[in-house]
């Protein structure tokens, strides 16, 4: 390399030096997320909740429905780490299954919401015109209807199954996602790379799936992460009002309701599910914050 004639044309440099070496933007986001302790801790906590929920499918310390495995109102001890409720059922076992219910509701509703909201949002944002006007009107109408009322009515009509509750919550909660995706699509559609795709003859379905959706995925994930705890809370509230999952399937909301009348003599019956619920909700919110920071391109130097 050291021997170079007096005049050299360094042609070989044109395209051979990369400005910076990095893997995909997703790897970059992951790198940033890892630096956020709170978000990372939350993620670990949620993975634990998930593990507990999975274990509870196969095994719980005691059958969740069997009454009198412990004395009623048993306070936590070695044999019953979280105590027992008014019917003498093991609270730990019920809490484990409750985690399963909460995650199913939270994630389940968001899968439906994402499927519906993303599709509707993409269509409204990309095609605009009358299609967008109809969809936007629909979104506003749904915002106008009190969600609690609609969910209650739906549960009354459809029955109290977990799937029905998921459906009822999704019906009242798809609009945020649709509106977000519509807005994202609106602005991404104006970006030059979408224009370039159109100019080179890319069909609309491919523009949506290859160009717009992947670039809107960050905000979609963040939105879904924030919406999961809302759905969990919604279910807890329905269960608390006795409109949640069918007993004896425990839900954190129902468990809290069960202990409510005995709050003075056995506060742990309310406190245990309430704390589990709060921690889970908090974890999802911290994770959502972390994801937003990690996925936000404006943070990029």
């Amino acid at each position, binding site marked *: 390399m050291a*021997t*170079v004639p007096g005049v050299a044309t*360094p042609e070989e440099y044109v395209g051979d030096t990369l400005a910076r070496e990095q893997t995909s933007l997703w790897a970059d986001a992951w790198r940033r997320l890892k630096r956020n302790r709170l978000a990372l801790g939350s993620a670990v906590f949620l993975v634990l909740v998930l593990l507990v929920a999975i274990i509870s499918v196969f095994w719980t310390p005691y059958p969740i429905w069997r009454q009198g495995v412990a004395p009623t109102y048993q306070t936590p001890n070695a044999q019953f780490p979280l105590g027992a409720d008014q019917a003498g059922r093991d609270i730990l076992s019920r809490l484990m299954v409750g985690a399963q219910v909460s995650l199913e509701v939270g994630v389940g509703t968001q899968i439906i919401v994402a499927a519906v909201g993303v599709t509707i949002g993409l269509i409204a944002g990309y095609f605009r015109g009358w299609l967008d006007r109809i969809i936007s009107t629909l979104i506003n109408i749904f915002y106008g209807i009190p969600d609690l009322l609609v969910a209650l009515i739906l549960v009354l009509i459809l029955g109290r199954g977990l799937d029905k509750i998921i459906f009822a919550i999704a019906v009242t909660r798809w609009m945020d996602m649709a509106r977000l995706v519509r807005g994202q699509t609106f602005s991404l559609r104006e970006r030059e790379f979408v224009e370039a795709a159109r100019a080179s003859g890319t069909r609309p379905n491919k523009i949506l799936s290859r160009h717009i959706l992947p670039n809107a995925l960050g905000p979609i994930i963040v939105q879904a992460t924030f919406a999961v705890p809302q759905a969990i809370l919604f279910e807890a509230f329905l269960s608390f009002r006795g409109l949640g999952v069918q007993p004896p399937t425990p839900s954190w909301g129902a468990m809290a309701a069960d202990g409510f009348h005995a709050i003075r003599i056995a506060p742990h019956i309310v406190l245990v599910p309430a704390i589990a619920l709060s921690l889970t909700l908090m974890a999802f919110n911290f994770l959502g914050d972390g994801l937003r920071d990690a996925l936000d391109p404006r943070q990029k130097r």
Partner: protein
Amino acid sequence: MTPVLQVKDLRTQFFTDDGVVKAVDGVSFDLHPGETLGIVGESGCGKSVTALSILRLVQEPGRITGGQILFKGSDVVKMHDDDVRELRGKDIAMIFQDPLSSLNPVLKVGYQIEEAMQAHTKISGKVALSRAVQLLKQVRIPAAESRFEDYPHQFSGGMRQRAMIAMGLANKPSILIADEPTTALDVTVQAQILELLRDLNEETKTAIILITHNMGVVAGLCKRVLVMYAGRIVEQGPVEQIFHNPQHPYTWSLLQSIPRLDADRKDRLLSIEGLPPDLIKPPPGCRFHPRCRFRIERCFRDDPSLIDVGPDQDAACWVTMRRALASDGEARA
């Protein structure tokens, strides 16, 4: 004549996750009272960071890590924060590329000029008002009295830059630093702003440091030019020398690479191949050598410092264009 500003071996570095970016790496120059000095270079060459360093406006993770910035003898680098604040806007004013983001959108333009004055001098509202109107007139804003009451969004891009200049001149500073003041403007407006700066320099004797990537802009306004590349000054001298007799291959190549409006023939442009170097790990030897078409063996190894290459003209090059073109001619013959 004693210089109003002396920058000595200035080093400003950015401590990023990827490493230390040596954005300004040993820059020295003098600015004399009333002088117009141009600093030219491409994005990332350190010209803007040099300007920000002078006013200690470099933001985290950037830091001035060495050198001196002597304003009338006192070192800005070591100055107390309060004194630097007093310096900014009073002795040294700065205007930026995007005047809209420098102006507060909810305050009237006139009020912002008055405020700029009252921040540094105790004057009555009445005096401030008449002086502000006078300043708007000085920067050739038509109907200054009525435009005084306007909000920034009611001004066009060119008018906003004029208002920023008025604000910059409010306290009769010794130095006005203009960082790419015309880059966001249309050419016809750019020409008028440059003309204004030239006139104001003559009227007020305020020294101007013009930072730009546009060689044509420098040619029209500045008496002396610094050419920066990869955090260093590679050449400096009087504007005529730099444009007619450039000695550093980078300066020479840059001038050859821009299409000229007055070019008679459509020659192929000379292109500088490759990219500016990564300032975390700059190349050994001369920083320009990977892109230089006149490099010799020594350029790979040894880092050249500025040497005298003509009247008041210095270049940091082992070859210099005088020799490069001579040997090129020999080779051709």
